[in-house]
């Protein structure tokens, strides 16, 4: 059957219009369950599955679980026939330093509900942090401001974020190693999956590195710029999947990336760079004294803004997207749920653009800072 162009447009338009009828969040089934079990509960994270939750605190818990780190890799959870919560996923190892190295699997925590006993010490997870508790089956003691007073052992476990960093590193390694190898095998032309990334690598070199750093010195920084670009891009894209992987939305991760940029600018800077900071040429002498502390502060604030920009963009995007998806469950009619579905779809398209854009901005600003660090000394009329 061959349709003409106008008929095809009409068919597609009809399908798009009928689509809201199929966008179900199963409103009637959910409302029955909620009305039977719902007890208005306080905003706490340790809700047992037997108690009912009203939908708003459940959404808050869902958003929190997506944004925070966790000690096990929970792919999804469902309620089986007995009404208990079943989880599909695997536990990650927990490594603590508490007068000796203690390594154990996070399955001992039973998803944050029980106390783990290791070598006579007891540990408990509270708000995604591990605390040492005294007796078996005890909880952390909270002081007046609801902060725990137990000590925290030194924690360098493999959490979900660390695990995802390793996964992305391995993906990048095999992807680009395969791309580099395919050049030798095929006589100068790339082949395989890496072909898609060749123009992007060239773009980073020709549009980001060379204009900002200059022809003489850009090669030293290319490896770092490429690593940062693809690392941030892949991690942002992974954050948009429903598994709750939120690495760039963790301020420690972005702080480390910004710190590395700062260290590279500081330790590969030429004398002119420091000369320009402390003794800005071309301004009268009293201004030079005023500008020196401001410029020095500027060297810290520029990487700091890199950290905040990436963190805030990603976290804010995730919160908005999760809230809109949760809105789909709060509205229990056809129109409200379908409208919020389309809105969250549009916002997730924007989030995919933001993933690439934030990686590009981080890389470009890093290249800009490197460029100002290795800038050649040029004479202008103010110099004598």
């Amino acid at each position, binding site marked *: 059957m061959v349709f003409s162009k106008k008929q095809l447009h009409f068919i597609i338009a009809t399908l798009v219009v009928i689509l809201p009828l199929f966008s179900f969040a199963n409103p009637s089934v959910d409302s029955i369950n909620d009305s039977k079990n719902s007890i208005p509960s306080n905003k706490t994270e340790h809700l047992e599955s037997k108690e009912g939750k009203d939908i708003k605190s459940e959404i808050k818990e869902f958003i929190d679980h997506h944004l925070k780190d966790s000690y096990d890799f929970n792919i999804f959870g469902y309620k089986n026939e007995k009404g208990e919560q079943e989880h599909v996923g695997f536990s990650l190892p927990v490594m603590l330093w508490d007068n000796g190295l203690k390594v154990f699997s996070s399955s001992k925590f039973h998803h944050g509900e029980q106390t783990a006993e290791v070598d006579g010490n007891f540990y408990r997870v509270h708000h995604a942090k591990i605390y040492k508790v005294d007796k078996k089956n005890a909880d952390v003691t909270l002081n007046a401001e609801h902060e725990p007073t137990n000590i925290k052992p030194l924690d360098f476990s493999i959490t979900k974020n660390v695990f995802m960093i390793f996964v992305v590193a391995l993906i990048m390694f095999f992807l680009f190693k395969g791309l580099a190898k395919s050049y030798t095998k095929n006589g100068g032309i790339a082949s395989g999956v890496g072909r898609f990334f060749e123009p992007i690598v060239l773009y980073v070199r020709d*549009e980001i590195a060379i204009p900002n750093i200059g022809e003489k010195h850009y090669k030293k920084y290319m490896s770092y710029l490429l690593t940062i670009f693809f690392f941030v891009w892949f991690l942002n894209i992974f954050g948009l999947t429903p598994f709750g992987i939120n690495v760039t939305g963790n301020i420690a991760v972005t702080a480390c990336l910004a710190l590395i940029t700062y260290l590279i600018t500081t330790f590969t800077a030429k004398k002119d760079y420091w000369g320009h900071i402390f003794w800005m040429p071309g301004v009268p002498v009293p201004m030079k004294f005023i500008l020196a502390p401001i410029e020095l502060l500027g060297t810290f604030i520029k990487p700091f*803004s890199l950290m*905040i920009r990436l963190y*805030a*963009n990603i976290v*804010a995007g995730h919160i908005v997207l999760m809230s809109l998806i949760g809105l789909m469950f709060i509205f229990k009619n056809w129109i409200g749920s379908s409208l919020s579905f389309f809105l969250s779809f549009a916002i997730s398209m924007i989030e995919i653009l933001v993933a690439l854009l*934030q990686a590009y*901005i981080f890389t470009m600003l890093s290249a800009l800072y490197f460029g100002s660090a290795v800038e050649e000394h040029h004479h202008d009329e103010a110099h004598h």
Partner: protein
Amino acid sequence: MEIPKIVGAGLVVIGAGIGIGRIGGSAMDAIARQPEATGKIQTAMLIAAALIEGIGFAALFAV
């Protein structure tokens, strides 16, 4: 959330919106004057928009 915090957050968003709107408008004018420079103008516009958004988000988090 208290009222001053909410008002502050709204002001920050207004500032960011005005800034990015002005950049978008100037970019439109520039593209209309010289359509062959569209690529460079778009790149510069996106960079400036991301910088302003960075400040906007940072202030929003502080609020």
